[in-house]
C-alpha cells in the first residue's frame, strides 16, 4: 500500500530562483549597451560656460565634437598654455578641421548628412579668436549647424 502513499504536503514547494541571475544579467547587459561612454579622452581643460536658454542635443550619433581650450596640466610642458583645438584624441590645427568634417561625413549614412550638427565644447576662458577661426573653417566645410555646448546655469557666472 505504501506505493500510493501520498507525500506529506505540509510545506509549500520552494519557488525556483535559478533564473533570477539570468534576469539580472539581462538587465545588466541592457544598461551596458544603453550607456554611452565618453568617446574622447580630453587633453584640454574643458570648463564649459553657463547658459540658461539652452536646447537639448539628442541623437548622439549625429553630432561631431570639436573641443578647444588650454592643454591640461600634464600636456602643458609639451604643448604650452596657448588654447588649442582637439579632434578625436589628438591636438589639431585649424586647417585640419575641414578634413575632420569630411571624414566624419564619410562615416555616416548619406541620408543622415543634412542632420549632422557640430558641437563646440570650448573652455570658457578661451579667446574668441580661436573660436571664430573654427567657425570660419566650419563655414568653408559647409557644416553650418552648430551648437555651443554649455552647462545649464546663470549666464552671469561667466563674467565673474
Amino acid at each position, binding site marked *: 500500500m505504501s506505493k500510493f502513499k501520498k507525500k506529506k504536503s505540509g510545506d509549500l514547494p520552494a519557488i525556483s530562483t535559478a533564473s533570477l541571475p539570468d534576469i539580472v544579467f539581462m538587465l545588466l547587459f541592457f544598461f551596458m549597451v544603453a550607456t554611452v561612454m565618453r568617446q574622447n579622452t580630453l587633453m584640454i581643460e574643458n570648463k564649459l560656460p553657463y547658459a540658461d*536658454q539652452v536646447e537639448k542635443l539628442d541623437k548622439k550619433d549625429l553630432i561631431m565634437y570639436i573641443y578647444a581650450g588650454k592643454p591640461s596640466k600634464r600636456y602643458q610642458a609639451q604643448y604650452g598654455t596657448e588654447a588649442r583645438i582637439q579632434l578625436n584624441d589628438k591636438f589639431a590645427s585649424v586647417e585640419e578641421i575641414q578634413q575632420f568634417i569630411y571624414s566624419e561625413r564619410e562615416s555616416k549614412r548619406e541620408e543622415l548628412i543634412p542632420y549632422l*550638427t557640430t558641437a563646440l565644447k570650448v573652455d570658457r576662458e578661451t579667446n574668441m*579668436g580661436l573660436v571664430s577661426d573654427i567657425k570660419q573653417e566650419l563655414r568653408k566645410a559647409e557644416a553650418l549647424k*552648430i*551648437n555651443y555646448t554649455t552647462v545649464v546655469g546663470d549666464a*552671469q557666472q561667466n563674467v565673474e
Partner: protein
Amino acid sequence: MAKRSAPEVNAGSMADIAFLLLIFFLVTTTIETDSGISRKLPPWQPEDVEPPVIKQRNIFTVLVNSNNQLLVEDEEMELSELQEAAVEFLDNGGGTGDEACSFCQGAKDPSSSVNPRKAIISLVNNRGTEYGTYIAVQNELVAAYNQLRDREAQRMYGMTFTKMEKDYNDPNFNGDKDALKEKIDVITDMIPQKLSEAEPSS
C-alpha cells in the same frame, strides 16, 4: 571519524545582492545629454558680394571688447541690462504702413526698429574676448527673443513659446503636433531670430 563534507554555501541570496547593486546603479546613473545654444552659421560667401543695405535704425549693435566690456548702441552697458535693452529695441514697433507692427508694445521711438521682422541684432566681438562672455551675451540675446515670443504665444494661444517647443520636441507628447508646428511657425515668422555676427576685429 567519518569524513565531514564541507557545508554548502547558500547561493540563493546572490541574486538579491545583484539586484540591490543593479537598482543602486539604475538610480544613480543619469544618461547624460548635452545641451547648448544652437546656431546656424551663414554660408561661406566670396568676398566681392555686396551686403544688402539695411537702415541704421533697424540695427542693434552689440560690441564686446577684449576686456569683456559691452558697448551697446554706442553706450556702455552691464550684461544684466542687455536683455531688457534688446527687448526694448525689438519691441519698439515704430513702423507705419506696410512696416507697422500690430502687436508691439514698445515706445514707437522713430530712431529705433520698425518691426521685429526687420530688426537685426549685430554682434561684434574682439579676438581677445573670452568665450564665456560671448556665450553670456548670446544667452541674453536669445533670452530677449524668447521673452518676446513667449509673450506673443501667451497672448495668441494661451501657452508660452518655450512650452510649445518643448512639447513639440517631446516624443511622448500625444497632442496634435502639426497644429503645434503651425503655431510655432506663426510665432517664429512674427519674431524671427536675426542675429548677425561680424568677423571679429583684432
